[in-house]
């Protein structure tokens, strides 16, 4: 702005403010009145009659340049797992109970790292494609940015999300379901890179390797790589966060989270699965007969009520509340979500937020007039393939208690007369 006869714009604003403040002070009878508090109705908590936010200037623009949540939302953070022997091979949980809609903010996206979060300068980073290809190729990040990219919304769920529920059900939804997040990912279809390199007809599996201190590796079926796999470099509109694979990661929609290898550096095409540690000794499910289920790629349909949720409390007594939660399927779209408020005896279809996207989180909701007596509520999803989310009883009967991964059973929450919410299966609930 130009500095004119009346000074700078800022000067003018300041003078105007002082004049207004002086008038306001006289008209309303001084600072004592401005500080007055009053309840909105009898018996409710008092709050400022005139909010201070209306009487002083706020902060200037770009304070700070990269925006952060309100200071009153400081409790909405990821919960670090402090029970693993090392924080470097560990995980942090998304606070599902505090989130709205289907998208997870980047700073709250769950983490699973196998040896810490690396610091990678994108200028020094390359992706190599080799093995059973016509032409081995190496791509810089600049190369990748020149290729046609697309943006798609997909969930990621750790294979071990809800693993607590097999043997020691958790009292808190963060522990029981927090290894789940959803974002819009931008990247280059992996198929485009593979076509550029030319896969040999013998090539059936692709080893994906990360540039982290675990040199994380998983084997990916070529069909999946050519279907909807992305080489993703952005998440919710900005470049990936370091803990999500900066500068580039693999993204395999609907597949167990750790196959979407972060900090992607190498893709090797081979004839057979590579049988890495993370697909043999880990991420395999032990069955009661001593055999183990391997290559359980697709995350089966699952749903959970996130509000109210275990670990929380319904405030404000009986009356109307909105039951709200998330449903998803690694096989495609959510077709229907049913909700029970009588412990599973009867179910009613919930409303689904649109758009309902394949392999993305879908938010469902149902209004509930709670009479204040103890109740058990739960949700159950059916996906577009007709697959119905199983009960814990059915899941344990088929998988046994030691399966550890892919727990997708119905999660019933118990609400007591005071409004406290607990996991029905947790000890002491």
């Amino acid at each position: 702005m130009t500095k004119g006869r009346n000074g700078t714009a800022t000067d003018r604003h300041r003078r105007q403010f002082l004049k207004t403040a002086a008038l306001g002070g006289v008209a309303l009878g001084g600072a004592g009145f401005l500080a007055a508090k009053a309840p909105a109705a009898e018996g409710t908590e008092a709050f400022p009659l005139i909010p201070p936010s209306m009487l002083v200037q706020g902060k200037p623009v770009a304070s700070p340049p990269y925006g952060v949540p309100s200071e009153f939302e400081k409790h909405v953070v990821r919960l670090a797992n402090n029970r693993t022997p090392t924080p470097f091979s560990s995980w942090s949980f998304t606070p599902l109970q505090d989130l709205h809609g289907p998208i997870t903010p980047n700073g709250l996206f769950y983490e699973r790292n196998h040896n810490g979060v690396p610091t990678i300068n994108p200028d020094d980073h390359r992706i190599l494609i080799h093995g059973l290809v016509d032409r081995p190729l190496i791509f810089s990040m600049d190369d990748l940015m020149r290729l046609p990219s697309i943006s798609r919304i997909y969930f990621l769920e750790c294979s071990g999300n809800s693993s607590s529920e097999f043997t020691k059900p958790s009292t808190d939804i963060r522990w029981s379901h927090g290894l789940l997040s959803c974002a819009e990912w931008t990247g280059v279809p992996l198929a485009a890179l593979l076509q550029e390199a030319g896969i040999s007809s013998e090539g059936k599996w692709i080893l994906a390797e990360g540039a982290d201190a675990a040199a994380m590796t998983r084997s990916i079926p070529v069909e999946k790589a050519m279907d909807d796999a992305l080489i993703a470099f952005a998440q919710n509109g900005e470049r990936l966060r370091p803990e999500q694979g900066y500068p580039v990661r693999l993204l395999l929609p609907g597949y167990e989270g750790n196959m979407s290898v972060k900090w992607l550096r190498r893709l090797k095409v081979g004839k057979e699965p590579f049988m890495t540690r993370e697909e043999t000794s880990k991420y395999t499910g032990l069955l009661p007969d001593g055999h183990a289920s391997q290559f359980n790629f697709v995350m089966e349909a699952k749903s959970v009520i996130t509000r109210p949720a275990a670990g929380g409390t319904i405030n404000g007594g009986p009356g109307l509340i909105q039951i709200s939660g998330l449903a998803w399927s690694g096989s495609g779209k959510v077709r229907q979500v049913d909700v029970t408020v009588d412990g599973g005896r009867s179910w009613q279809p919930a409303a689904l937020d649109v758009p309902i996207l394949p392999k993305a989180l879908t938010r469902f909701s149902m209004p509930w007039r709670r009479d204040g007596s103890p109740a058990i509520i739960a949700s159950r999803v059916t996906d577009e393939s007709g697959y119905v989310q199983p009960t814990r009883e059915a899941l344990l009967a088929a998988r046994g208690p030691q399966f550890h991964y892919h727990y997708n059973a119905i999660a019933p929450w118990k609400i007591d007369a005071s409004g406290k919410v607990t996991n029905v299966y947790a000890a002491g609930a």
Partner: protein
Amino acid sequence: MSMPLVRSLTVIMLLIGFLWGSTAISTARSQEAAKSPVAQQRLGIGQTPTEELIKAWNIDIAPDGANLPNGAGSVAQGQKIFADTCAACHGEHGTEGPMERLVGGRGTLDTKKPIMTVGSYWPYATTLYDYIHRAMPLNNPQSLSADQVYAVTAYILSMNKIIPDDAVLDRNSLPAVKMPNRDGFEQTEAPRGADCMTNCTPLDPQK
């Protein structure tokens, strides 16, 4: 040469190159289904990596032993390296922790308290080499030489009584080791629920 002439020559040469390239590629891929609009022609992005770079990056070890490097290590050598480098996290005998238990547990997988270790659970000995080389020790990954990785692998397998105490492992003997749980893996279907709407079985186990 005048600038316009240079420019036209460049355009012509690019066109020739493009036409030649796309013909060659479409012939080579005549049997491939066109899944994307870019499938019919090379994008021309990305470089050809040197053999040296591929060799340096190509560290994965297949179950058949392909890609195993030269070198060798004995159980005795591995015992010393394990004590110095691994025992702090895995315990002196590979059983004490706090990190991953490596030893024991044979015959427990079908019990109520299965103990899943290298000896009882891992299907391939080659995976041990691959993982130790790429990721161990956690605080100093890729610090062990090929000889040292063979030796530590040998020691862990000997503690599990899978190879004898005087064994030496190399690129030929390691893939020949048959792990006890080699055939313990299968693919299974996930259990499905039922879409009952009224008069259903309650979820609460106490009711």
